[in-house]
């Protein structure tokens, strides 16, 4: 019988291989041979990769349906490329692993190996992520052909982008926590390189470093979480593996464990693991309190902001938490923390975004805020919420990429100026940018029927439902989810307000541009991706909402299947939620129009009136200042003090010991008085030593 999954295996290797190949070709040929054509390998590679990813999605879709009737949990194929490490007998089999092995009718061995294989595997969750990542990257790469045109290091940009897409696709393909961490940091590295792409700008270099370090802090937690998983479950593999000694070792997210939720360790340990993973996710997805790197990352070229810092890389945290749903399922407390972090981040970032004047920074804060929504959805712990979070992830990728590319188009036209105080009324000079940007704004604000409406509405509905649900093993005297629901509604209002504030300031009002700039519509390579993304931003929400394909397909993912099986069909109608959010959004847009269309005098009066609030928002809630004061500063001072201690105390002590013989000699000297010849001898030796030293050096 021919292997029905052979197709899938081939395709899933091709998806990351093509961008990698493109990156290598660009790096090798770029500087000397390709020069201003250096985009070709990457555009081609990403385009092919996107096609392959869509084919893969179709294949997975076909198989997940076909296999649904015998086993919902059936894995859809693994490819093991090579063995990273295989160290036998390192860990005494922990109880959680032993219990699961007995469940699978194998005798647990006394010691477990540390085997890490470079294994790729695909399921609906991965297939969806792959399609989104490669497709958006492809569009951004086309856009960059126009945007980066004439840059000194044109080839370097495309090589980095290829490398990034490779890392990101691998991140969602690997089947092991260690390799997840590997590509987790690899995308961080690409982000570092791309933020600091214009390294001559000190701000860009500093922003790159900051992004890397804040991410490292998150990764610190992630690494601890991975270590805890390892000693708790005895393996880092997602999938079940066969031991060389015989018997099956159940993976952390493998079929055996997924089939029986009681095989996940509950209680404090589960909470600890989940919270540590959450720290990692907060770093990568720019959640409070590790969000500070993302706004600074806007120093990078705009296509990078669109690709890495809006559409793809920052969603890695969301992906990871969805992937680890069974682990989080064992700890409702941790899920609640996820929801709180998400809700808090959504609100705080929206508050900050209201008063920013840099268009890209407004979008950056809105990204943080929208990611907060996704976390909030995941934090409900229900299939409805998780599916809503993933749905929002997809729609957000399209409309946020669109908005960033629109902002880039403005920058391109104005020679790099992006401060909203310096220009207005661009709608006539840049019609395509203006209209596509408007679609993006409508999607972001969540206006019916644009993409953002459907996905945000789902999250609100899930939170609302969770607030009134009874969950086993979870009691809280405080109505956390009820509060979070109102926080989310408030955020929806703020989102609509700041989005349209930005739109009105940039595109409406009298035409006003910086003196040196000659605004013009961007070239076709830039407007075409804008148009395509706009179509998606407008339509993808309704498309996916109609019919229940998205939910049922996503629910075929092994990590989610068990959860989906528990829930009885789609939740009831949430018309009141939709109505409430629509009303709130319309008020937000109306207020923005009231303040920013026309005279714009009321807003100054309002700002004066709300002085403290305005200051807090404008100064980004003093996060950077507080970190500098509490962490960076003290560590720098400690470092300086320690370097003094090193130089004077420790080394001084060493030198003191070194002098001991000399002093000993001084003490002993009086015992030697009178013996002239011994002095002579000492002198002779001394002279010889001195001479020797002089001769030698």
């Amino acid at each position: 019988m021919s292997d029905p999954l052979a197709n899938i295996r081939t395709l899933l290797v091709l998806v990351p291989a093509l961008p990698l190949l493109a990156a290598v070709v660009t790096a090798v040929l770029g500087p000397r041979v390709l020069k201003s054509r250096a985009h070709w390998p990457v555009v081609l590679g990403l385009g092919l990769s996107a096609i392959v990813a869509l084919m893969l999605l179709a294949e997975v879709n076909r198989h997940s349906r076909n296999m649904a009737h015998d086993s919902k949990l059936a894995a859809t194929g693994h490819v093991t490329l090579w063995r990273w490490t295989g160290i036998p007998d390192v860990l005494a089999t922990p109880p959680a692993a032993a219990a699961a092995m007995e469940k699978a009718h194998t005798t647990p061995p006394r010691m477990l190996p540390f085997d890490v294989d470079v294994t790729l595997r695909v399921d609906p969750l991965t297939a969806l992520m792959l399609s989104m990542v490669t497709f958006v990257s492809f569009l951004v790469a086309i856009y960059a052909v126009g945007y980066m045109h004439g840059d000194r290091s044109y080839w370097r940009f495309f090589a980095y982008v290829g490398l990034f897409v490779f890392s990101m696709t691998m991140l969602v393909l690997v089947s092991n926590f260690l390799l997840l961490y590997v590509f987790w940091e690899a995308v961080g590295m690409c982000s570092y390189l791309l933020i600091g792409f214009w390294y001559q700008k000190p701000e860009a270099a500093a922003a790159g470093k900051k992004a890397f370090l804040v991410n490292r802090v998150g990764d610190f937690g992630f690494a601890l979480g991975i270590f805890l998983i390892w000693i708790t479950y005895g393996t880092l593999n997602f999938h079940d593996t066969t031991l060389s000694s015989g018997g099956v070792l159940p993976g952390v997210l493998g079929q055996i464990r997924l089939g029986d939720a009681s095989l996940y360790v509950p209680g404090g340990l589960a909470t600890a693991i989940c919270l540590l993973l959450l720290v990692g996710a907060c770093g990568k997805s720019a959640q409070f309190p590790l969000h500070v790197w993302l706004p600074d990352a806007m120093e990078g070229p705009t296509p990078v902001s669109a690709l890495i810092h809006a559409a793809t890389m920052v969603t890695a945290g969301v992906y990871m938490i969805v992937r680890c749903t069974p682990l989080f399922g064992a700890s409702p407390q941790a899920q609640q923390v996820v929801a709180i972090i998400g809700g808090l981040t959504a609100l705080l970032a929206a508050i900050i975004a209201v008063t920013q004047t840099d268009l890209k920074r407004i979008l950056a804060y809105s990204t943080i805020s929208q990611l907060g929504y996704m976390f909030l959805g995941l934090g409900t712990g229900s299939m409805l919420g998780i599916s809503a979070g993933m749905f929002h992830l997809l729609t957000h990728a399209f409309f946020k990429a669109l908005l960033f590319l629109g902002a880039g188009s403005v920058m391109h036209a104005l020679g790099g100026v992006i401060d909203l105080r310096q220009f207005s009324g661009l709608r006539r000079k840049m019609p395509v940018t203006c209209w596509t940007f408007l679609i993006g704004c409508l999607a972001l604000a969540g206006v019916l029927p644009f993409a953002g409406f459907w996905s945000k509405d789902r999250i609100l509905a899930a939170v609302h439902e969770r607030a009134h649900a009874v969950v086993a093993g979870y009691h809280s005297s405080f109505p956390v989810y009820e509060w979070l629901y109102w926080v989310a509604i408030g955020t929806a209002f703020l989102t609509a307000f700041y989005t349209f504030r930005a739109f009105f300031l940039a595109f409406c009002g009298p035409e006003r541009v910086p003196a040196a700039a000659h605004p013009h519509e961007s070239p076709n390579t830039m407007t075409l991706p804008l148009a395509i993304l706009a179509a998606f931003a407008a339509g993808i929400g309704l498309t996916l909402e109609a019919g229940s394909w998205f939910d049922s397909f996503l629910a075929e993912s092994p990590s989610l299947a068990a959860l989906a099986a528990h829930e009885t069909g789609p939740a009831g109608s949430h018309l009141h939620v939709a109505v409430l959010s629509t009303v709130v959004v319309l008020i937000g847009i109306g207020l923005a129009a009231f303040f920013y269309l026309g005279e714009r005098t009321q807003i100054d009066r309002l700002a004066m009136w709300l002085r403290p609030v305005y200051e807090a928002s404008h100064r980004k809630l003093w996060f950077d200042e507080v970190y500098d004061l509490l962490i960076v500063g003290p560590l720098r001072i400690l470092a300086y003090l320690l370097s003094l201690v090193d130089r004077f105390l420790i080394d001084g002590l060493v030198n003191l010991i070194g002098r001991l013989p000399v002093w000993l000699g001084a003490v002993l000297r009086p015992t030697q008085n009178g013996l002239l010849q011994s002095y002579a001898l000492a002198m002779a030796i001394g002279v010889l030593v001195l001479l020797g030293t002089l001769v030698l050096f």
Partner: protein
Amino acid sequence: MMEFSPQHLLLWSLALPLIGAGLICLLNDGRPQRARTIALVTTLLTLLVAGRVAFMFPANGINLESTGGAFALTDASWLGKISGLDVRFSVGLDGLSVWFYALSALLSFCCVLLSWESIHERPATFYSLLLMLLCGMMGVFAARDILLFYVFFEFTLIPLYFLIGIWGHEDRNYAATKFFLFTLTGSVLTFLGLLTVVLVNFSHTGDLTFSIPKLTAALGPVGGHPMPLHLQLWIFAALTAGFAIKVPLFPLHTWLPLAHTQAPAAGSVLLAGVLLKLGTYGFARFNLPLAPEATAWLLPALLWISVAGIIYGALVALAQTDMKRLIAYSSVSHLGFCMLGLFALTPLAVQGGMLQAVNHGLSTGGLFAIMGMIHDRYHTREISALGGLARRTPWMALFMVFFTFSSIGLPGLNGFAGEFLLLAGMFQRAWMTTGPGGLGLKVIAVLAVSGVVLGAWYMLWLVQRVFFGPLREPHGTGHGHGSHDELGHDLKQPDRPLVRDLSLREIGALVPLAVFIFWIGLCPQFFLSRMAPALQEATQPAAAAWQARQTNEAADRQTALNPRPSVPVVAETSP
């Protein structure tokens, strides 16, 4: 093609550098060209031979039983049986030494390329000392007899002393003397410890052997004559005196920043790359197998010292204004990781720790090489004097960023493989330790992981300051205002740009390092599988001793709780 046996190849690899050194002295004409060519050919040949030996080394210790775990063993009577003093010329490789042995050859080759144009003063002496150093380094890892080991151990000291003292920077005399006295003091004590071991074995067996494998076997827990704890502690202390200074363990590190800043580039590369590893190697070769109970007794203290080095080295590095000093302190931090892995005594941790020692040689070796290239061009080590060099020297920036990534443990490169394994192993040790000691170990594990964050901080800060931002170069670059070893090159051809990017020769010096950085990062299994059996053997007694202590403590606690247990105490055992 003629097939050489590994034995012959190993002997050749030790002899070649000496032959080369002799040739350089014989054919010396006072100019660099001839000396450096001979040195290059010699190191290349040595590298090829040593590489051949290393890659013939079998994985998983297959077929090594007959020779007592040694590969390419040559064992001959050396000083004769003078009154029963069985000192032998015994060289061979095992999993502990094979990669250090190969690393020495690799880095020496890079060093010759690196020194190609920066050494004008007494080139023949320089290159012959370099080759002698190479012989010493390879010999010390290959030696399987205590006296031979000690001879090579001290022999590495002398060439490096002269390399720093003659070709070093402004403070070279002080640095060389301090380096020499510091390490000599320690190693004399180490020698005393080693002699004690020989005598203890003599008193038990009547065999005055100096053979390292025989001694470890006889005095190990299975050999029948393990030493009592107090004696083990004395021996451990004596051995530690020399090795801890070499590593260097905090707070015995103050010679290192000084020696590194003052040494010429080649000296720094070999010092960081190989000579520090003598300490790590010494601990694994002698301390752990010979004094396992002392190791177990001291384990928490040793782990604390290691983690103190990690954090302290990283923080002090953060406050440096001198590039080479910064990297020197980063070495203190990185070696703290290696020692932490070794002392954690779980299979994962010791393999990670030893792999990390090799990794440090590659990445810090590369970083020091680049520091040397910067010094060749700008005659400064001050971070504040430089900026935006990526614009002027993009290839150098590329390699700098690459080695930085390797040094801060970016996945896919070598540093990650070592760090992840050793931290996972340390984590396992901490979380498997029950009782009051467990909390301390957990704190150590978490602190060690946080060292990874600090490591990224100071290295990225260095890269940002020196290579990114607007271009900043010291005044008078290339106009002869530099120190003693100014770059005559640019003066002769004033029409050429003052500062050029990496030459092919310099790229050639860095590429071999980069290849191994990738290889170890992508497939550490190849390297680990060759180290594992020997490491397991060396650390197993200490791990067992620690386990026994744990069991006893648990039993004591149990007895303290129930003074008269009605059922036999079943102690929890977790390997």
